[in-house]
């Protein structure tokens, strides 16, 4: 029973840790399935986190924070879109630029507006997304054991967590079962086919990067005013890159993306939990072993089981009519 409870706690932690990865990963998925490579996930998330933190601090409303985050993140997306779709620029360079601008601008504006070292003022109450208790939470917690699985893993997260996991079936359905999704996937594989079918390649790609912006907006909001209570400079701490890795790991598919992000979250949670505890047989182990664990396991899994990941064929290539 105690093991089940520990497992529940670790799983709950895994869920929370996986959410920003999942949202960013889905953002990358939308963008890259349409053929626009996005290594600016990190920057967009950061900009969104700042916007969320700033707006929530000023207005006192988490929802306005979310709105601001989404708008800012979409604005960054559109810059990336303009560079990579309309201007046919190098998508990776554009992504790098987005990351630079976001890192600088958030700290700059944060300091200029709030004078707290690029931090936004801490937010409380309605300015933050609070945990939501699902029915049965109390009873399940009281029951202990497997009940904890309900109370820790499923219930008690904030709305963005549920939104993130809802975004998975929505993405799956929209990509796989709708007209828009069909066209979007097509434009990532062969934009010529889409163009000759009389559909605007640019239009589809702009739509895709906009969705990516929206999702990064959610991710940033989660970081700033759901998981934390305010923005701190550089608070994305490389999550955008991990999300990118998860995207490749998941072979650009929504459900595997969720599983990958959960796996990354779980590895992280396990590493957190195991840190400092002596292992059986081996005895005490340096912290770094556990800190490296998620990364090492990812490499091992990748080399051992996942196999070749083939990106959408047209991704990263600006579309031009000539061959």
């Amino acid at each position, binding site marked *: 029973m105690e093991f089940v409870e520990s497992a529940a706690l670790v799983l709950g932690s895994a869920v929370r840790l996986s959410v920003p990865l999942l949202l960013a990963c889905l953002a990358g998925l939308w963008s890259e399935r349409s053929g626009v490579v996005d290594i600016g996930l990190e920057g967009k998330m950061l900009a969104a986190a700042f916007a969320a933190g700033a707006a929530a601090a000023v207005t006192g409303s988490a929802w306005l924070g979310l709105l601001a985050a989404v708008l800012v993140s979409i604005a960054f997306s559109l810059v990336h879109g303009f560079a990579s779709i309309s201007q046919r620029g190098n998508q990776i360079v554009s992504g790098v630029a987005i990351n630079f601008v976001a890192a600088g601008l958030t700290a700059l504006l944060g300091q200029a507006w709030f004078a707290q070292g690029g931090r936004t003022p801490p937010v409380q109450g309605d300015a933050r997304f609070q945990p939501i208790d699902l029915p049965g939470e109390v009873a399940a917690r009281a029951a202990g054991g497997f009940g904890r699985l309900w109370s820790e893993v499923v219930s008690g997260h904030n709305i963005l967590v549920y939104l993130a996991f809802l975004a998975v079936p929505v993405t799956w359905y929209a990509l796989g*079962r*709708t*007209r*828009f999704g*069909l*066209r979007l*996937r*097509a434009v990532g*594989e*062969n934009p*010529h*086919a*889409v*163009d*000759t*079918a*009389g*559909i*605007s390649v640019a239009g589809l790609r702009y739509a895709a990067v906009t969705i990516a912006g929206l999702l990064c907006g959610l991710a940033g909001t989660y970081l700033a005013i759901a998981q934390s209570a305010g923005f701190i400079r550089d608070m994305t701490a490389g999550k955008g890159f991990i999300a990118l890795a998860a995207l490749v790991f998941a072979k650009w598919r929504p459900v595997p993306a969720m599983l990958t992000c959960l796996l990354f979250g779980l590895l992280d949670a396990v590493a957190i939990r195991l840190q400092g505890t002596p292992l059986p047989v081996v005895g005490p182990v340096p912290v770094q072993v556990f800190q490296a664990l998620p990364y090492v396991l990812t490499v091992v899994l990748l080399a051992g089981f996942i196999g070749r990941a083939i990106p959408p*064929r047209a991704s990263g290539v600006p579309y031009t*009519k*000539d*061959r």
Partner: protein
Amino acid sequence: MPIAPIPDARIPALPPAIELVGIDKRFGTVHANRDIHLTVDKGSIHGIVGENGAGKSTLMSILYGFYQADHGRILVDGREVRIRSSADAIGLGIGMVHQQFMLVETFTVLENVILGAEGAPRLAAAEARARGLIERLARDYGLTVDPDRIVGELSVGEQQRVEILKALFRGAETLILDEPTAVLTPAEADHLFRILRRLKAEGKTVVIITHKLREIMAVTDTVSVMRRGEVVATWPTAATTVERIAEAMVGRRVLLHVPKGSSVPGRTLLAVEGLDVRDGRGARLVEGVTFDVRAGEIVGIAGVAGNGQSELLETIAGIRRPSAGGIRLGAEAIGGLDPAAIRALGLAHVPEDRHRMGLVLALEAWENVMLGYQDDPAYQAGVLIDGAAVRAAAADRFRGYDVRPPDIRLRTGLFSGGNQQKIVIGREMERDPDVLLVGQPTRGVDIGAIEFIHRRLIALRDRGKAILLVSAELDEIRSLADRVLCMCGGRIVGECRPETPETEIGLMMAGVAA
């Protein structure tokens, strides 16, 4: 006695399906279309021929809204229209099957067919409609494809059917086909022509670009010839001859059949015995294939694409590994060696897909002249590559094989298909190999270049070399090969003389006479 309808100036005739007036298009410095006037009658099949780079594809792409003309007007059904995008063209009932298929290879047939014409936001309804259409077309035209297969796994012939299905699904009244038969077997091509005639019978209009004059004669009502961006002639097909068309195209007389003496086979240079090849999943692609090719002969392999010919060539060349059986090059067993080692032993290989395998389109042309021969001592200067030597060799090849433009510094992708093919053939033949494997040597190549390539192949044979030729063109096989092997389902199902009637070979290819 039935009288053919004669156009009568007094009766207002149906307006032409398409009328192009003064179309002009430049790509930078290239004048691809010059002041083109072209009329396509409703309910007719209109052929367009011309050398590689004459501007055929460009003209049709303008009609289809893929490019915009710099000048000129387009009339559809007698009304002047503006076609700014493919969507406009589709809306006007124009459909196009491009030379390079515009298919999403990871999609199913069904998804490809409905793409862009899905109707409702949810796919289910469109899929049902498309399924219905596919069934009907299969019934009416024999246009069969499995709607649920992944397009990338289909043969080119099937992929082309998907393209036609796409156009018909969008309600095309005028169907443009850009070199539709370049990749088809004769049987598939005949099938296509039956379909085109059915379409015509239903009142639809067809414009077809091809390099095969036989096809022009067989299916078209009218033929237009393009040269250097201009339409230089338009004739009712019945009123002209293959020779006249060829001359108009090339600007000189062309030999449509290269003369060739009888072969004097010498010793065996290539021997294949009991060869088995499997794919990654273990399915057999080539099964128990045994044959040999002797010095001074051309052995042709006839077969419907996808019956193991490509895999056979690739295995002999060392690109694939045999799962059983032996291959000998002269006295050496080469089964399982890598391509570089096999090449070093005197085997050259013109792969059937020059874009995918034979060339690196992003490199400058001269760099492709050493593709596969980068280890050649003649190309080395110490630890580095002797660029001057390679460029000298390249310039030499370009002269010898009449590659146009003769600019070895040009990016390879900018050459036309025919000239790209000459680069590959020149590279492989100039090594003076003992054995030459050739896949589809003249696919998509204009008749002038075909003549040239055929001459070269025969000359190589006459120098006592062994050539193994795989071609989907029965004509080509029959005019070049000294012996013909038929492949079907990965096996050699029969051998015959090149004089054997086409129908008989056709039956063998289908596996019937085995």
